[in-house]
């Protein structure tokens, strides 16, 4: 036996032995490289698979899923023969090493996943997390990531319709960049990543293959950063070219419409290794590929480099021999490079040649679907009990009206509650002409096609602090917030995608967080009746022994039969009645108030109230359907005070409210399952009737109007003062 460098490629001893057993010999260098990327945590889900199964096992009854978990993205029936596909994916590690390109290619990658399903991409969202806003590295990271998300998405012509930006010291050195894409198609246009039909040609189209992104999924994304880990890993980050992606998208959509491809797969993580083995494995076929035919940026590339390169903007299409000329001609008219690099065979083997020699001869399923599966040990963190016992109840609270006002001003200007305008203004929200709602509204709403009023609403939420205190509840609270944010627009929640960001799975305490969060999310989805359609796991978000807060980010998609009936999140006119739907308890564990005012993280997060969330959603949908609501805005991070300020600042319309009971709890508690709504006097009775029908509590708070937030008997804050506090923070730190 010759020594092989499997450990440097990220493979463990027993994994290497298994490869030898599968092949009955030592792997070639190229085969070893392919197994190392395909069996990486990022590609194989080897540590998460046993937990992710719950999403299928506990899935609620549904008739809206046209394509479920396992494909590039799930596909949801939204009616009228229309289907949408959506998915969120992480690009965390590359974005730390090279913020602009890491974030840009994160957007590019998820857009290709959506395109691969046969859909036209129509919107993107992004969920971003960084260390403290005044951390010395934050300006580089935030500026680079935001410019990268914008630079790629704007140039692709996809509106960015929402997302989140969060600052917390736990993400210093491990920023999270999660990108979501939404696509639309007609039912009959769904494409699958299958290589079928012996003799069909394998066509590589798009950008040339270069030396960028080699080992991106393995040594970069599936390993912990050490102290010197950043810059030295820069060659593992891909480099994006959105212009090429734009023409690849238009070209592929035309190929689909003309029925010229029988299967399609994007090249993302693990590059050709992944695209060839997955399409062959899922098609139950074999495939032969000649690497000499792959167009290269750099002719001296080795076969290992060619087959593991993660160069962007590439797609693999399976084409009938008689259609090849038409495919190549169509690609040429878009200026898209297209090359036949192989064909589908009946050998059941993936056979790759280079310079006339066989460099790979393996069963494709052994790469794509039969990687290792681990039941990693897990253990409740040693500090979990102490953390939960350290309740926020003992923290000093503001007493007087003036103290309450000062507290509110500090909160609305705090990094996590301040206006996101500095970020969102760098994103095009208008392109394609279908954007009905975008930031700062609770969810993004888009009209799907020009000749229909049907639309979808999307929200993307997470809360790492809640999940740190209780990962089971934290995952459910993330789900509940996204579900609620979709509901406030008037939409009917239908389906879920998720991006699970955690530390190292080799740490039992991290693994416990992961197990609890997935269990919570699966249980929550069942209770809310919304199935998971797909998603992504990102492990190894840690530096040395320090992991990020467990951060499940959840996307919920809802449907609006008529986008004209969407409900915005800002006060629409003076004189409307303001009401709170849902009930408030004193819940301050993991709250923004505890963090901003006391630097405190402890106790238990707010109790998830999923049955109440469902009732709230039903009331919001029904009231929106009857066009009773002029505004609806969810109450979450920061509490009711933050909600009122945000609603007032959208259109500069003030509000006067009377808070019964203790004003502090009313203003700052983060109890779940709540929203504020406004309506005209004439519609109040009907709204109360609907709420009563769903057994949902309603509290009348006051009335819109004026140029201040007036809390009767407590304080009055001019909107201009609130706006100054709310909008100055991000530019001050980041511009």
């Amino acid at each position, binding site marked *: 036996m010759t020594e092989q460098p499997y450990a440097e490629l990220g493979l463990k001893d027993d994994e290497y032995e298994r490869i030898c057993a599968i092949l009955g010999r030592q792997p070639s260098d190229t085969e070893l490289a392919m197994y190392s990327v395909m069996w990486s945590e990022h590609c194989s889900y080897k540590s998460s698979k046993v937990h992710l199964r719950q999403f299928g096992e506990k899935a609620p009854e549904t008739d809206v899923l046209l394509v479920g978990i396992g494909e590039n993205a799930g596909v949801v029936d939204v009616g009228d023969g229309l289907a949408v596909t959506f998915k969120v994916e992480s690009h965390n590690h590359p974005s730390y090493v090279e913020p602009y390109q890491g974030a840009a290619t994160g957007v590019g990658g998820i857009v290709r996943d959506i395109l691969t399903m046969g859909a036209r991409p129509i919107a993107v969202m992004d969920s971003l997390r960084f260390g403290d806003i005044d951390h010395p590295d934050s300006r580089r990271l935030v500026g680079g990531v935001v410019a990268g998300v914008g630079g790629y998405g*704007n*140039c692709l*012509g996809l509106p960015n319709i929402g997302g989140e930006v969060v600052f917390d010291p736990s993400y210093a050195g491990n920023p999270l960049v999660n990108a979501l894409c939404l696509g639309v198609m007609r039912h009959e246009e769904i494409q699958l990543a299958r290589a079928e039909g012996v003799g069909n040609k394998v066509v590589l189209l798009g950008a040339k293959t270069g030396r960028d992104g080699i080992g991106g999924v393995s040594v970069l994304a599936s390993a912990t950063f050490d102290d010197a880990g950043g810059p030295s890993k820069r060659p593992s980050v891909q480099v994006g070219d*959105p212009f090429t992606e*734009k023409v690849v998208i238009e070209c592929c959509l035309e190929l689909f419409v003309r029925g010229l491809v029988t299967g399609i797969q994007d090249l993302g993580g693990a590059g050709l290794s992944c695209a060839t083995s997955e399409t062959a494995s899922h098609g139950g076929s074999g495939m032969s590929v000649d690497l000499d035919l792959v167009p290269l940026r750099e002719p001296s590339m080795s076969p290992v480099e060619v087959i593991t390169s993660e160069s962007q903007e590439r797609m693999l299409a399976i084409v009938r021999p008689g259609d090849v000329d038409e495919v190549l001609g169509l690609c040429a008219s878009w200026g898209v490079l297209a090359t036949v690099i192989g064909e589908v065979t009946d050998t059941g083997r993936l056979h790759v040649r280079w310079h006339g020699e066989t460099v790979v001869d393996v069963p494709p399923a052994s790469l794509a679907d039969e990687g290792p599966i681990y039941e990693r040990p897990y253990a409740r963190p040693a500090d979990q009990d102490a953390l939960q016992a350290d309740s926020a109840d003992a923290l000093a609270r503001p007493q007087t009206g003036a103290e309450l006002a000062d507290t509110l001003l500090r909160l609305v200007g705090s990094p996590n509650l301040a206006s996101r305008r500095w970020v969102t203004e*760098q994103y095009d929200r*208008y392109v394609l002409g279908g954007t009905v709602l975008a930031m700062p509204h609770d969810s993004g709403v888009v009209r799907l096609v020009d000749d229909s009023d049907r639309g979808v609403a999307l929200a993307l939420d997470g809360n790492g602090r809640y999940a740190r205190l209780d990962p089971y509840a934290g995952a459910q609270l993330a789900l509940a917030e996204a579900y609620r944010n979709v509901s406030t627009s008037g939409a009917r929640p239908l389906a879920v995608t998720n991006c699970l960001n955690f530390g190292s799975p080799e740490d039992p305490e991290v693994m416990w967080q992961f197990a609890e969060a997935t269990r919570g999310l699966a249980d929550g989805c069942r209770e809310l009746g919304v199935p998971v359609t797909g998603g992504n796991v990102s492990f190894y978000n840690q530096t040395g022994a320090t992991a990020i807060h467990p951060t499940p980010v959840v996307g919920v998609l809802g449907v609006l039969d008529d986008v004209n009936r969407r409900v915005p999140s800002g006060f629409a006119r003076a004189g409307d009645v303001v009401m709170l739907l849902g009930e408030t308890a004193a819940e301050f564990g993991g709250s923004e108030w505890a963090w901003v005012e006391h630097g405190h993280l402890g106790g238990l997060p707010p109790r998830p109230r999923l049955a109440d969330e469902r009732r709230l959603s039903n009331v919001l949908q029904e009231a929106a359907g009857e066009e009773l609501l002029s505004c609806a805005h969810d109450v979450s991070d920061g509490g009711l005070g933050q909600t009122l300020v945000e609603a007032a600042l959208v259109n500069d319309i003030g509000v006067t409210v009377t808070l019964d009971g203790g004003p502090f709890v009313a203003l700052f508690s983060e109890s779940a399952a709540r929203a504020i709504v406004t309506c005209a006097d004439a519609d109040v009775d009907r709204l109360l009737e609907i709420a009563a029908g769903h057994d949902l509590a309603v509290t009348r708070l006051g009335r819109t109007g004026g140029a201040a937030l007036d809390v009767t008997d407590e304080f009055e804050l001019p909107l201009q003062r609130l706006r100054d506090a709310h909008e100055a923070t991000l530019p001050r730190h980041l511009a």
Partner: protein
Amino acid sequence: MTARIGVVTFPGSLDDRDALRAARLAGAEPVALWHGDHDLRGVDAVVLPGGFSYGDYLRAGAIASFAPIMVEVIAAARAGLPVLGICNGFQVLCEAGLLPGALIRNAGLHFVCRDQRLRVEAADTAWTSEYSAGAEIVVPVKNGEGRYVADEATLDALEATGRVAFRYVGGNPNGALRDIAGIRNDAGNVVGLMPHPEHAIDPLTGPSADGLGMFVSVLKSFAAA
């Protein structure tokens, strides 16, 4: 007969479908034109849409200005055909020499997308007759290289001859000289502006419907002719 408004798609054009939709909503027959053709398909007016034609490589609009279709657009514009350049289309018109000046990187260095107030300075062009001079409208602006610049003499000449078509009011988003958002040629058939009227055609999907007036204006100019 319904007037036909053509919209050119270059590789990397993004707002072409939006411009076609605006033309249709204004009552015209929208006609898609292809960058590689030497054929204007008999249209009555042409829109060069927003986007990043050819990836903005070299300079924004520079490569597109040499596309085959631009040979036809330039000749027709000189003969009086109404041409509207929006954002990247404005950049193409400047690169093609149909309008003076240039668009450079925003003063703040960032891409900026916001709802922008504009004052209509010239209401006597093919694309602005629906507005009254001095009227204020709200349309989205969204670009990274939208800062209009020209030498002082050119700027003075533009002002003196009423060729400033639109000016930013309530804040200049990109540092454009003299707050210039859009300009016109002498004849008034060619207009270029950075903001996006095609994104302000319906309050459901835009900040207003103020942009529709540009497409209606050009239709009325045919009726009057």
